[in-house]
């Protein structure tokens, strides 16, 4: 395959990648791998053994969706697999909620430092588990990182 043809394909893939920028990283990488493989297969079917030129690459890409379509399609598709997204948000909510609860408990006179740390550890443990389950979405990943850090803080405070 001519170098120019490869560059044309790469340019298309880069544009699609930009359209998928709001998708989770592994989802974006998988779709791009699928597309790259698809494009090369389509060119091979078109050229039937001869060296592929830039015109071949352009002709194949012209028959495919413009890059803008991929962002819309991925967003629409994510709607039907929304459980993970919801779980990620819940995990983040629990993490932040229990952090606030721990702070408030610490400020209440007589509530005690122990109750504050206990609520922090318990909440962050729950958030960490949910965050790990929902780690594929950005909220889940953020919840897992936040709760792990806060859990560590909680454990250090008990020491």
């Amino acid at each position: 395959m001519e170098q120019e043809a490869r560059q044309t394909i790469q340019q298309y893939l880069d544009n699609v990648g930009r359209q998928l920028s709001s998708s989770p990283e592994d989802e974006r990488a998988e779709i791009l791998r699928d597309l790259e493989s698809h494009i090369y297969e389509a060119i091979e079917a078109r050229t039937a053994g001869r060296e592929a030129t830039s015109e071949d690459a352009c002709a194949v890409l012209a028959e495919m969706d413009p890059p803008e379509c991929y962002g819309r399609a991925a967003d629409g598709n994510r709607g039907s697999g929304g459980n993970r997204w919801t779980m990620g948000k819940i995990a983040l909510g629990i993490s932040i909620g229990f952090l606030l609860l721990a702070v408030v408990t610490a400020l209440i006179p007589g509530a005690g430092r122990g109750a504050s740390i206990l609520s922090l550890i318990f909440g962050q443990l729950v958030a960490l588990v949910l965050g790990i389950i929902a780690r594929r979405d950005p909220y889940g990943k953020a919840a897992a990182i936040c709760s792990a850090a806060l859990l560590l803080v909680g454990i250090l405070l008990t020491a």
Partner: protein
Amino acid sequence: MKGWVTQLRKGLLEFCILNLLAGGETYGYELIQRLKKIEELAVTESTAYPILNRLREDGYVTVRVEPSRDGPPRRYYSLTGMGKHRISGMNAYWDQLSNAIESLRSAGRKGDK
């Protein structure tokens, strides 16, 4: 009408992809070409690959990668055990649903006469 057709197509595409893969391992380009033959589905790469990816994430489909002579590796898709179970359930539901709808339609046609 147009919105209804779009929603129906979206649901049917997953059903068709799983049914196609039930026939055996297939690579991406071939899968899309076969789906494109069903004009009513209006399949494009931007609609099919995100669905394939979701099916893979949900554990219904698995990908096998095989090196190719010139270019990136070829990616073969097949159903997992969970995918086979899902498509058999979907097919059973489809049969029941289409029979029920057909009964409704034939009752409607009798009413027209």
